[in-house]
């Protein structure tokens, strides 16, 4: 009888450990986290944006980058974002920007909600986007005088590329 009890306890312990690990130290919660929908956005430069990078509103994570591919005709990047439905619907004129966490941190997508009454549905596109800021370009522009160092705007992203790209 002893081996049977021992083996039963062994298997129970194993599954207990596996479940505890899955829930305490993997991303299982965000995977189970209810319904989600996906929207796309076009960027002319992704910088270091990677798959599974977080999508945030006001610093709160509401989804992640699900897919990145290149548009072979326009040579810009099409990014699919998987957003949690719990976060509420986004106004259709919301804008997306690729930001950096800290000076050297990871890239993430920050969404600023707009004010329109229409909302983004599954498969819609976020039209207003702002590409990643490439630090080297900024420094280059600053050093070689394109971005007039006297004005407070000199290091703003606007000096590098237009802040909104029309589709």
């Amino acid at each position, binding site marked *: 009888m002893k*081996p049977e009890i021992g083996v039963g306890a062994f298997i129970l312990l*194993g599954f207990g450990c596996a479940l505890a690990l899955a829930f305490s130290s993997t991303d299982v919660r965000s995977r189970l986290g209810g319904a989600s929908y996906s929207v796309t956005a076009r960027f002319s430069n992704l910088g270091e944006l990677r798959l599974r990078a977080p999508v945030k509103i006001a610093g709160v994570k509401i989804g992640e980058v699900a897919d990145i591919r290149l548009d072979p005709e326009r040579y810009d990047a099409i990014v699919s974002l998987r957003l949690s439905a719990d976060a509420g619907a986004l106004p259709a004129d919301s804008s997306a920007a690729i930001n950096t966490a800290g000076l050297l941190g990871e890239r993430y997508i920050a969404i600023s909600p707009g004010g329109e009454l229409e909302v983004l549905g599954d498969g819609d596109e976020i039209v207003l986007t702002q590409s990643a800021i490439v630090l080297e370009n900024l420094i280059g522009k600053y050093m070689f005088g394109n971005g007039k160092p006297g004005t407070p705007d000199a290091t703003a992203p606007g000096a590098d590329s237009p802040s909104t790209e029309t589709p």
Partner: protein
Amino acid sequence: MREILRQLGALGLFGLRIISSLAPQRGSGHDLVRQLYSVGARSIPIVAVGGAFVGLVMSLQGYRTLTTFGASNALGTLLGLSLFRELGPVLAALLFCGRACSSMAAELGLMRTTDQITALEMMAIDPVRKAVVPRFLAGVIAMPILTAVFCAFAIFGGSVQAVWVLGLDPGHYWAALQGSVSLVDDYGQAFVKAAVFGAVLSLIATHAGYHAQPTIEGTSRATTGAVVQGSLMVLFLDFLLSALFY
């Protein structure tokens, strides 16, 4: 070189023989439970203690290194990824190899020495089906479970060290883990690796024991061979699987 090739060939043929006699028969469930007990359940203490200390020491060392860069909040990431991707399955497999594979090889070697395997054959009982298959299956089933136990103790040991001794914020530790460890790519692969290691280790151990020279020396040589070849094979296969997965 010829000897290595011959060994590999013999191992492969033995593996095929095991697979061809996997089909369950009367009483095989009972044999499997008994093997699971001696191979798996009784390996829990060493695996749990080993895991806890690996977690403690990695937490300590990782913290020392990461604070140099002001990134001590990434401790959970470091611990989780290195444990699930490499250390968990590999160290659990090495402990399993020393604790369980040695006894598998020694048991089978002694059965060979004392002519029990011949006796089984005389009674028209397939010794592979009766004595080898339960041990092999027990290894395949036990290794993922032991890996889960090892990782759990390591992660919780690491959190104890990080939170109570080093004074890190527990929220940061768990959030870093949940934010960076992927359920399928990291966590799932750990168990795939563990099952592969379990199969290869128990195949090597049963092969060494089953084909041991029928002497006392032969048994001891088979036991040593099982542990040495098993450990090397785990390290080699880990490299191969990591190169495939990541």
